[in-house]
Every structure is written in structure tokens, then in C-alpha cells.
């Protein structure tokens, strides 16, 4: 029936380019197969282990201590999402999840507490807008990450986005990576600053080289890094890998891992252990040799499947109007500054494209409601000239190609849905994995803690202090580093400790970690009760303000102390621990029972975990 619906198309259209085409990552037949398998599993016709492997291969984790529910992980290569996709996720979260969606630390979007029987419906909806959950979990090549600044970063050699998409397409459903010893992660950076290249199985930084008077594109490729219960920093394979050898390098690495990786010991089967145990020199030699073999034996047809050209965005984006400078980007702001100026200062950065800016949406530990997603989608359509957004490993959204002249309108629109909070690019934007809100492995409620840190820091206006700006706080609910605590200035991972004869939720505090091409892992210092974490970080900031040498940022100061090179009264981590000994003390339990509980709990703490599903 034809309906007399009134057209709701946006009349503004502000010269926004044509929408990006549906990327078609998903396949409808996979949703039907999934629905069938669930029925067979429920009828007892498929063994549990087989079903779990299948389920994980298709992006559905079991939920915390309740296997009737799943966490559905939506793979978003490079974090890039169209408004249609964002709206679809809004509807799916309302219908089948809890009405909120969650940005992960690897550019996935997660829907929690989805009934297992509904997972196929979520998948079906995703396929309509081109998304997939395929190989988002399990022993596969996980979501291929790409810096959210790629294409707009002033320091990048070239835009790595099409390369990351081409790699993602090449490996998705590729038989060579359907049953690896363990999961495998590939991360692309834009420059030496932005990107998690040293903590991935394969990390790639775009680079160029002059050869015979011509500029050749390529990458600096790092292998064997990764975060987890034991973390390692990746090794540089060679000075420069020309773009023509990128696919072969990746294939060779995956093949080596597939052949030599540990399939017995679940706790040590990521590739970084293989590299560590074998020794880098040996692994490096094997990788280079394997690459030669790959290059000699890969068919032309296979090599053509890695098609960077087809992944390029060929739309001509309009030029942004020239405008007066935006002073608030550089000027100092305070807690009392007008909200818009504070937001501008802490959430917006200029792009290499003159007149265009990238604006960040501050979320609390990556949580966003369905109605907020709809406003976000509409704001992207109205204000982003590229008409897409990227989700970021800091669990925020980056909306790029916003004209400087329209930033205020954009801000107002976000504000109408509570999406214009400041602090996205500052210490206040704490990262937190899902913790005990949904994860089987979690010991503590890291998710809530990260939100509490953010709330407190924004309340105190710490986002406006530029000396704190490059510092980061990241929280994991267990030693497995989904919250990426090891690359934080101050990181935390959850545990349980007996204190004053009670079990207390605690966090091991780490200092001095960093991301980027020079990334380093933080050093564990001490355990802090969950309810003392915020006070402890505030005390660290206080110590920094007392001790810093001129112009030294919090991050720089913490790194110096971690390396034993602190200038003032706090020279090393031992001094730091002594200075924090007081603040981590708990009063007697009768005096303050709440101090012995975890966030989000009104009863006594006990550490409950179940089998992890990372390794199927």
C-alpha cells in the first residue's frame, strides 16, 4: 500500500557529499545459518564445544555467568560507520539488547545481554546496512583497526584507510585464518603518534621513501606486540616495507603463526609468546623467508583480492569556507569558561584540510543510548562533509570534516542529546572495559570505575588543565588488557585482595605506559582498593603539581618517575609508593563498609569468574 508519508529528508544538505556506499561486510545467509545452529544446539544436536567455536566465529560471546545471553560484537573496520549503520544499531539495541550500545577499545561496537535466540536477528539487521559480526571473536583475524585520524592527520605520510580496509576484506572469511592457534590483531596508524601499532600482532605505520627520484609508499611494520596477562612491544621487521609487499608480509606472518603457534597452552598461544620464545632475530628471519615463499607461490588471482584502489574514497569533498581562527583551540580555558569554549578546547582538533575540523563525542566508557545514536547519525548527516564517523580506541566517536563555521551548530545539536560533554581529548576521558557488567573473566567493575573517574574529573574541571592533557587513565577488570591499562599514563587492572580480614576489590596500578610508535608498557607499582582509585589518582596529580619541573606535563613527569629519573622529592616508583601509602588505606570495615565494596554493588565483595571464551 502506498502511504501518504511526509518526506523527512533534511532540507539543509549543506553541500554534503553523496553518502558512502553500503560496505557489504555482512552476508545474509550467515544469519540464517546462525539461527539454525542455535536451534540445533538447544535441541542438544550439536556438542557445546562445537557450538561455542561456531558462535565465537560469528561474533557472539557468552555473557557473564549467564550463557543464555550473548555479547554481540560488531566488527567495524577502521571504526568507520555511516549514519544508516548508527541508526540501525540504535534500533537493534532497543529491540534486542539493553537500549545502549558500547564502543570497545578496538573499534568494535558491542551489544550486551542479547538473548542467544535473538543474535541471528541482530545479525540480520546489521547485514542490511553492511555490517558484520563475522570473526569478531574466536581464533581469527579480529577487527582491523585504523587510526581515526587517518586521512586528516597533519603528520601522516598518506591515508592508511584504504590499505586497512583492503587487508580487512582480504582476511575476512579467508580460509587461511579460520582456525588460528589464537586471535590475531592488525592495527594501522596514521603517524608515529596515533595508533596502537606496537601492541598488535601486526602494526603498520605509513611511510614514504624516495627511490630513483620517485616517492614510494610503504609502511613500517611491527610484529609480535600485544597486550594481555603478559604484554610485549612489537618489533620492527625492516626499515621500510613497500606497499607492494604489505599483503605478502601479513600473509607470511599469519602463516608462521598458524604453523608454529602454540595450540596446547591457552595462556601462552598468542603470537607474541611465539616471538618471545623463539627470539626476535629468529622470528624475523623466518618471517622474511616466509614472505619470499608467499610471494613466489601466491597466485595472481589471490593477490588481486587485496585491492587497495577499490577501497579508496573517490568522492570529491567540497572545500571548507575560509574562516577566522578558532582561538579556543589553543587558548587556555577554565572550568568557568563558557561550555562551548571548553568543548572546543578539549574535543576539537584542526585537520590538514584547511577549514575542516575533527570533533570528538565524549562518551562514558563507550556507552551511548539508542536515542543518542540517532541524534549522532543525524548530526553526521548534517555536519560531516564525509558523512561518516569513526569510533575510537578511547571509546569515543570522532566526527571529521566538520566546517569550522558550523562547529557551534554541530555542538548545539549534540548538546540536545547530552552528547556535547567536554574532555574527550583529555585525561578525563577514561577508558574502561566492560568488567563485571557483562564479562566472564572480570573480577571488578572497571566499566563503572572509568565512568566515575570521568564524572569526577569533569566535575573538578581537570579536562581544562593542559598540563594533564596528554595523560591517560585506562582501567581493565582483570589482568587481560581489554581496557589497555598497560599503555596508560596511569593504568589499573582489577583483582581481589584480602585486607583487614575481608576480600576487597582492588586494582593494580601501573605507571608510565604510552601508545604510538614509541609506545612503552607501564610498570606495575601497587594495589589500590577500588573505592580509593579516584583519590589515589587525584593524589598523584597533586604530587605532580608540587614536584614538576617547568613545562613538564603529567605524562612526562610520570614517565620520568617510572624510569627513576624524577627530579624533586619523588625520584622513582618507590618514592611514589611511599607518597601514596596513606591514601590507599582503608578504615575498619564497621566504620565504612562501602569502602570494601565494588562500584555498583551494595553487598559484600566476592570474586566470581567463569571460563573465558577468547580462546575457543
Amino acid at each position, binding site marked *: *500500500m502506498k*502511504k*501518504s*508519508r*511526509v518526506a523527512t529528508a533534511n532540507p539543509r544538505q549543506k553541500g554534503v557529499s553523496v553518502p558512502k556506499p553500503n560496505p557489504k561486510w555482512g552476508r545474509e545467509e550467515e544469519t540464517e545459518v546462525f*539461527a539454525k545452529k*542455535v*536451534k540445533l544446539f*538447544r*535441541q542438544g544436536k550439536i556438542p557445546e564445544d562445537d557450538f561455542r567455536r561456531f558462535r565465537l566465529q560469528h561474533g557472539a560471546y557468552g*555473557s*557473564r*555467568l*549467564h550463557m543464555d545471553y550473548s555479547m554481540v560484537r560488531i566488527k567495524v573496520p577502521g571504526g568507520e560507520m555511516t549514519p544508516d549503520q548508527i541508526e540501525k544499531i540504535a*534500533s537493534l539495541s*532497543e*529491540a*534486542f*539488547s*539493553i*537500549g*545502549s550500545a*558500547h564502543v570497545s577499545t578496538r573499534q568494535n561496537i558491542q551489544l*550486551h*545481554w542479547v*538473548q542467544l*535466540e*535473538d543474535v*541471528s*536477528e541482530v545479525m540480520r539487521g546489521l547485514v542490511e546496512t553492511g555490517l558484520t559480526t563475522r570473526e569478531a571473536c574466536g581464533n581469527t583475524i579480529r577487527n582491523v583497526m585504523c587510526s581515526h585520524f587517518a586521512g586528516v592527520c597533519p603528520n601522516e605520510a598518506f591515508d592508511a584507510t584504504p590499505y586497512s580496509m583492503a587487508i580487512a576484506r582480504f582476511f575476512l572469511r579467508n580460509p587461511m585464518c579460520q582456525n588460528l592457534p589464537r586471535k590475531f590483531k592488525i592495527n594501522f596508524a596514521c603517524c608515529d603518534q596515533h595508533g596502537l601499532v606496537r601492541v598488535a600482532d601486526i602494526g603498520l605505520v605509513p611511510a614514504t621513501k624516495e627511490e630513483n627520484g620517485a616517492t614510494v609508499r610503504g609502511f613500517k611494520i611491527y610484529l609480535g606486540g600485544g597486550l594481555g596477562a603478559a604484554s610485549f612491544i612489537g618489533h620492527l621487521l625492516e626499515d621500510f616495507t613497500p606497499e607492494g609487499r604489505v599483503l605478502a608480509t601479513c600473509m607470511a606472518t599469519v602463516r608462521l603463526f598458524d604453523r608454529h603457534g602454540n595450540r596446547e597452552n591457552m595462556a601462552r598461544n598468542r603470537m607474541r609468546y611465539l616471538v618471545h620464545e623463539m627470539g626476535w632475530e629468529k622470528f624475523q628471519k623466518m618471517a622474511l623467508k616466509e614472505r619470499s615463499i608467499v610471494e613466489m607461490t601466491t597466485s595472481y588471482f589471490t593477490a588481486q583480492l587485496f585491492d587497495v584502489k577499490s577501497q579508496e574514497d573517490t568522492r570529491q569533498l567540497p572545500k571548507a569556507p575560509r574562516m577566522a581562527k578558532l582561538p579556543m583551540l589553543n587558548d587556555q580555558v577554565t572550568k568557568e569558561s563558557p561550555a562551548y569554549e571548553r568543548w572546543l578546547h578539549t574535543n576539537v582538533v584542526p585537520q590538514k584540510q584547511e577549514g575542516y575540523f575533527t570533533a570528538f563525542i565524549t*562518551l*562514558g566508557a563507550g*556507552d*551511548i*543510548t539508542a536515542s*543518542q545514536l540517532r541524534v549522532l547519525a543525524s548530526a553526521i548527516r548534517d555536519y560531516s562533509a564525509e558523512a561518516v564517523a569513526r569510533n575510537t580506541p578511547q571509546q569515543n566517536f570522532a566526527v571529521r570534516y566538520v566546517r569550522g563555521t558550523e562547529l557551534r551548530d554541530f555542538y548545539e545539536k549534540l548538546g540536545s542529546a547530552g552528547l556535547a560533554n567536554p574532555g574527550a581529548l583529555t585525561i578525563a576521558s577514561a577508558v574502561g572495559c*566492560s*568488567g*563485571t*557488567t*557483562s564479562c566472564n573473566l572480570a573480577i571488578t*567493575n572497571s*566499566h*563503572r570505575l572509568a*565512568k566515575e573517574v570521568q564524572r569526577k574529573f569533569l566535575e573538578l574541571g581537570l579536562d581544562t588543565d593542559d598540563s594533564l592533557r596528554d595523560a591517560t587513565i585506562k582501567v581493565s577488570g582483570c589482568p587481560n588488557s581489554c581496557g589497555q591499562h598497560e599503555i596508560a599514563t596511569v593504568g589499573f587492572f582489577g583483582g581481589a585482595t584480602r585486607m583487614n580480614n575481608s576480600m576487597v576489590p582492588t586494582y593494580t596500578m601501573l605507571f608510565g605506559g604510552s601508545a604510538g610508535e614509541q609506545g612503552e608498557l607501564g610498570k606495575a607499582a601497587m594495589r589500590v582498593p577500588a573505592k580509593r582509585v579516584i583519590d589515589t589518582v587525584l593524589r598523584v596529580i597533586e604530587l605532580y603539581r608540587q614536584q614538576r619541573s617547568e613545562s613538564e606535563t603529567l605524562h612526562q613527569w610520570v614517565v620520568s618517575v617510572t624510569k627513576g629519573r624524577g627530579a624533586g622529592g619523588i625520584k622513582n616508583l618507590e618514592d611514589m609508593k611511599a607518597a601514596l601509602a596513606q591514601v590507599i588505606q582503608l578504615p575498619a570495615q564497621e566504620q565504612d563498609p562501602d569502602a570494601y565494596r*565494588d*562500584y*555498583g*554493588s551494595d*553487598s559484600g565483595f566476592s570474586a*566470581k569468574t567463569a571460563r573465558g571464551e577468547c580462546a575457543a
Partner: protein
Amino acid sequence: MRSLRAGAAKKKAAKTSSGSAVQLPIVCDADTLRSLVRKKAVRVVDVRKADDYKQEHIPTAVSLPLARVLENDTPEKIVGIMEELGISDKTPVVIYDDTFGALAARVAWTFQYVGHINTALLEMTFRQWKELGLETEKQARTFPKARHLLNVNRNIYADASYVENVKSQPGKLLVDSRERLNFLTEHIPGAKNIPYTMVGSNGSILRKADELKRFIENRGITSNAEIITYCGSVGTLSGLTYYALKLAGFQNVRLYPKSFKEWKALGKPKEEFKDAAYWDLSAE
């Protein structure tokens, strides 16, 4: 028995307009309603608050706020109200609200409970009706009093003791219509969760029948099962689920209108899940 397609309903409506009253489908689309209104062949019931009705409403609609239905909690009183609104046994009734169909569903169920057969839910809310630019009026309507028999349909009703016995009876299933987080917190033991958010879609208070059918089939529920729906307090959300299940083709569906509120007040057993801090995932 019921036509699920809007177009089919329209054809039927057109055919029978001159003779006896049309039998409405579960969900009535806007065009069908408009044509029935023009032919004066329908009673439209607005279950929003009285003030909202006074401001404007769908042409010829009468006002019956949900609160009035809940206050008059006996079949006799309900029939009395229906007669007062000019609804006879044969009058086709289309009910609408501005609360994604949940209030309309609860009133429709009540009418069916006291023996009115020909009721339908408008496919959209009043706000959507307005957004489409469809006609409204301000004039409050009254109609001559009608005669309506009282013929209580016990087969669509469940009370607490009926619900309590479901567990021991194979082929019967309890469905909780509240949102996932509420369900996880506590629910009637053995209940399955089909949140009300699942049954509607943008622009329509209920999804298409084949889609709803697939959702239920995915859950391994066979079409001959008897399903009892409940929600948090007065049977609105579960009223909508009641009609979703009817639309999906289930013959035996009952509503527990006093729902979880009464269940808790009676001190009946609950199932709780305390091992995860799932509320902290909500971005509300």
C-alpha cells in the same frame, strides 16, 4: 481468520461497507481507519489523557483514558462504559494512544475480555498520525447510548494462581514483556523475556506478522503453546505483547493484567540474577 496485510483489510472494508459491519484485523492501518470514519462505520477510542483528547484527536474519536479503565475494574463497569460510548456488540472499534500502542493494547484487551470481538489497534501512535499530516479535530464527541452484552472471555485472562500453576504444566509458557535489564534483575520463575521493545518497529506499533513469527520460532516456541504475558504493573506492555503473539498466529494467549506488581505484593517467589553489574552498562 484475520487479514494481516493492510491492503487486504482495506479491500474487505470496502466490500462490506454497505452491508454489515466490517471485521477488523488486529492492527488497523491509517487509510482503512480514515475510510471507516468517513463511512461512520467505526468507533474510534482515544485512550490518552482527557486533556490531550480535548486539545485534538482523530475525527469522531471518543475519549476513554486508560486510567478510567483501570479504575473501573469489573466487567460490568467496563460494559457500562462501552455502552455509554455508544459501542454495541457489533460496533467495530479502533483504539489508539501515544505510548507506542501499549495503552491502546491494554484497553483493547479489556474490551475483548468483556466480550467485544471486533476491536483493532491503530497501527501508529497519535504523534505519528499528526506527523503524517492526517486530519484531526477538537470537538468532543458523544454518541447515543448503545446496548452491549456482557460475555466474559476467561480464556484470555490469567490471575496469580493461574500463573503459579504454569510451571508444572508442559505446553504453557510465561512471557515477561519488560525491558531486559528489569527482567535480569527479577522476574517470575521460569518466565522468558520478550521485551516490548522487540515487537514494534519504526512507524508501526507492531512489526509484520512474519517477522514476529520468526522471533518466536527462533526461541523454539511452537505455535500450539499457550502463552501468558505479564509486565511490571498494569498489563500495558504485556498487552502489546499479547497482540504481537496473536498477530504471530498464536491461538492461546492470556494476559496477566495485574502483572509483576501484584505478584511481588503477594510475596510469590522471584528469580533474580545478581552476578553481574549489568545496570552500569546503561548510558541513561
